[in-house]
């Protein structure tokens, strides 16, 4: 079990220090799927990065199976089975897909083809490719997800894994998550805005304004989504055509 207790995180931005997380409390159990959602800038990635050790909390504690990991480095947490697939993955001049997967796997033997297949990529085309600027956004995202699948992991954090992934592969991706869930007792945390990902959730965590605003189940959220007002009621009265400025009539 992974526990976040009274976590505050402050980050230095352009206008000085900014409190991006405020009193976060979470208990994440093994063998469950958590989907974290909420408005842009709400703090979802920040929570994931704090679990991974990329952000250091200014207050609070993080425990994994009862062991305090608050002061542990990123590398130590990784060795204890925490993994994070970045929202915006890094590119590497000179590092091949094969190299990255091997680094992720460590001592473990892995089936590269199977892993790439699970993110919808053909091993023959990709294994020897450098993860450099020639990769498309969607390809890069898939490699990032693959780098978590190559590991033996206790807590897997996927940050908007579906972003940039085409519709055809989306199905494969959701199957991959279901598979991972069925074959291991990994705690899966998926940050997502997608209804189809929300449907996988055992628990939905709403993050807003640096706080957890609600911990709920998918039925409630899906119900809310279906009733959402999708636009602005004054849209028809908005100005049209070429304008020097925009003025809202509300």
């Amino acid at each position, binding site marked *: 079990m992974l526990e976040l207790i009274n976590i505050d995180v402050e980050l230095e931005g352009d206008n000085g220090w900014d409190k991006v997380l405020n009193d976060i409390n979470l208990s994440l159990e093994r063998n469950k799927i958590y989907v974290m959602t909420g408005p842009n800038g709400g703090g979802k990635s920040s929570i994931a990065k704090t679990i*991974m050790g*990329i952000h250091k909390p200014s207050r609070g504690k993080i425990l994994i199976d009862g062991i305090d990991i608050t002061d542990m*480095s*990123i*590398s130590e947490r*990784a*060795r204890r089975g925490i*993994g*994070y697939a*970045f929202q*915006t*993955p*890094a*590119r*590497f*001049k*000179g*590092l*091949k897909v094969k*190299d*990255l997967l091997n*680094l*992720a796997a*460590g001592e473990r033997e892995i089936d590269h083809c199977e892993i790439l297949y699970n993110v919808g990529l053909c091993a023959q085309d990709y294994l020897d490719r450098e993860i450099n600027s020639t990769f498309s956004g969607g390809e890069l995202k898939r490699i990032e997800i693959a*780098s978590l699948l190559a*590991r033996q992991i206790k807590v897997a954090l996927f940050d908007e894994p579906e972003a940039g992934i085409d519709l055809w592969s989306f199905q494969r991706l959701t199957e991959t998550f279901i598979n991972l869930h069925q074959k291991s007792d990994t705690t899966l945390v998926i940050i997502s805005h997608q209804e189809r990902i929300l449907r996988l959730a055992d628990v939905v965590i709403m993050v807003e304004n640096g706080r957890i605003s609600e911990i709920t189940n998918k039925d409630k959220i899906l119900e809310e989504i279906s009733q959402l007002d999708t636009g602005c009621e004054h849209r028809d009265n908005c100005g049209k055509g070429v304008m020097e400025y925009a003025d809202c009539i509300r």
Partner: protein
Amino acid sequence: MLTALDKKLLVEVADIHDIPQGAYNIRKNGEGIIRNNSANIEIISKKDKPGIDILIKPGTKNESVHIPVIISEEGLNDIVYNTFKIGTNSDVLIVAGCGIHNGGSEKTQHDGVHEFFVGKGAHMRYIEKHYGEGKGDGERVLNPKTIIHVEEDGVVELEMDQIKGVDYTIRDTYIKLYRNARLIVNEKLLTYLDQSAESKIVVELLGEDASAQIISRSVAKDDSKQVFYLSLKGHSKCRGHIQCDSIIMDRAKVSAIPEIVAHHSGAQLIHEAAIGKIASDQITKLMTLGLSGEEAEETILQGFLG
């Protein structure tokens, strides 16, 4: 004739684990010690100065020439002039390179002057590795000068590596490309401690449809210094691209001095140069896979210098 130390140097500079296949000439401490010709490749000692002529018959395909230089004596100042005649329509691999083991306190230096005449339609891949070792504080200096003439439709691939142990180097490369000749250069350089390296590559694109691509990647650590002077000169309808990419660390200094010159309105020349430290998102990513900070850094540098 070859000691264990010599063999180690040969592995480093020419990837030679045993006596190589094909033609070869191994030079040790200023003298040629072993040589082999093949049916199509002849190696002859120069009469007027130290060095050899390497003559490759037209149409020679898939053959290689190894001409490594190893130096294990301190205080040696070795100068050598090698001339290569690559026959028309041949396709060959030439592996040069110099390994210095300097266990003493005196400077050891090797200056190789290589001139290549690459015939019409010929394809040459040239690999040159520089390597130094030895516990002594004597400097290890390598100043190669390379001149290449590439005739019509010729293709030249150059791989120039200096990864370890050379204290001081000035590398001077001058290439002339005639009609439809093509050049690809891959340069890799790593310097550390207070090493200093300068690389000058000047390419004259003389003939119509000549093309050149230069990719230079380097890592400068500690207090080392690097200077890149990369120049493309277009004299006709031609294409050229320089990519010069350096990772800088510690207190190192790197200058990248680009030059592109067009003497013809059909010349299309691009220069890209970037110097920066290792991207922190790369280090973070590798740490999330369980590598330590140092391991991550090492992995990134190794990948970068491939």
